[in-house]
């Protein structure tokens, strides 16, 4: 059980702490956009590499007639949503995240194209190659983050 002194003590400190915290938040806010740290960037890059590589396999299978049109469309949509979420996170991630944010936007666009590619084998082949390149690039950017 807390003593009356302690209650009094916290009663005096609490408003000061609130003012201090508010001031810190204000100063942090004046710094501009929030930024992602190296670890967060690396995790985004790894996630992006995974999405692009998975899309690459799906596109390759579709190009060889080894998938169904429904699976291609639905699974590519799941991948697209995840890539778009990553692109949004990276877009707000500050200058260090710019390259990855651009790459995420490309990956999301390619995956969306894949989900609408239907039976266009030529487009699926192109997208398989593009997504494989994107995956490799995400891997490199992740290492340099």
């Amino acid at each position, binding site marked *: 059980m807390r003593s009356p002194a302690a209650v009094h003590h916290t009663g005096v400190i609490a408003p000061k702490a609130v003012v201090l915290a508010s001031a810190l938040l204000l100063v942090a806010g004046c710094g501009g956009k929030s930024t992602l740290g190296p670890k967060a960037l690396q995790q985004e890059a790894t996630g992006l590499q995974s999405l692009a590589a998975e899309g690459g396999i799906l596109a390759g299978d579709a190009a060889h007639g080894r998938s169904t049109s429904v*699976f291609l469309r639905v699974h590519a949509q799941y991948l697209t949503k995840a890539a778009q979420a990553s692109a949004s996170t990276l877009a707000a991630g500050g200058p260090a995240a710019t390259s990855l944010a651009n790459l995420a936007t490309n990956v999301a666009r390619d995956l969306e194209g894949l989900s609408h590619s239907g039976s266009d084998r030529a487009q699926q082949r192109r997208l398989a190659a593009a997504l494989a390149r994107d995956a490799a690039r995400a891997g490199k950017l992740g290492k340099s983050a």
Partner: protein
Amino acid sequence: MKQFLQIALGILSAIGGFVDIGDLVFNTQAGATFGFELMWVVVIGVVGIIVYSEMCGRVAAISKRPVFDLVRERVGFSAGLGTLIASEIVNLLTCAAEVGGIAIALQLLSGLPYRYLIVLAVVGLLVLSWTLPFVWIERLFGYVGLCLLVLVVAAIKTHPSWGHVAHGFVPSVPSGNRLVYFYFVVGLLGAALTPYEVYFYSSGAVEDRWSAKDLRMNKVTAIIGYSLGALLSFALMVIAAQIFLPKGIDPQFLGTPALGVEAVLGRIGLILAIVGILFAVGGAAIETSFSGAYNLAQFFGWQWGKKERPSKAPRFALSWIAIFILAALIVMTGYDPVKITEYSVIFSVVALPLTFLPILLVANDPVYMGRYRNSRLSNVLGIAYFVLILAIAASAIPLMILTNGGKG
């Protein structure tokens, strides 16, 4: 001959019903992250579920008492109520994940909107559970779930280095992040030692009025069925290690294991894999909802049983219906079933010792079990697994937090 056929059918449905969404998620992620390194954990998990199931089946056959009846008697009302609440939360989360899994599998087959398919899935489950006897539910989901054997074919067709695969059955120093490695150890054990399967199995044994003459079938079905079912877990890991690991893919979607099969076997393999997933998670959804209803009814002393007419056991019937509906509402919020699975598996590990211990105590109690009490081997295994379960229960949540759910 009739008994042989009965055992064979039991084994087949045990294989088909072995995999649920937890196994699909954790085995695929473990293979994609650590290759073959965690094969040994599946072996430990499968031996554990064999020991636990055999003991529960034997206790149910001889004492005629299911799990939560014994939990309340052995640990008292207050501690028992805590165990019940924890188990019900885990059951509900698992059921939600399975219902979401059914909707995703249906979506991958039909292309229809996910939320409509959640409604369709729950209506289908309610109708099947209401109209079909358990033997037909078991056959339908267990036998069609055998489509998942396509995973074994695909795993072989990836032409892994069998020497490396064999090496994975021996515990070794992890090649990557150690905390993530131990997170997957806990997750794989949790996915194999799912308590709802045991509640369901034990209650079913009481409902079917098992007796001492059923003990051999209980043992053979548990040992062979679960061992062969483990092949599916190994196959998931091999496919992930061969297809996803070299490309740096971190599987986050229920369609990803099916994609692995597609990459090896093409369109037919893909369809068989999705149908297998659909029926595997469908069977598991029914088991989780009924497990939840069994637990509530047994703890509070309500009339219970699938064989009872709903008017004779109304609170039991309302319970499983409510669990299905609540599960559907959880996934309707849009929360990812794969994420729900990760949480439910980790939380189920935490609740596991509370139900394992009463069973171990009763299985060893001569007053209840007479000459069918635990043998020395059963006791050694039971105690060893209880210690293991305590260790993983204590480490599960800290590991989940420290590794950011296995992300490192």
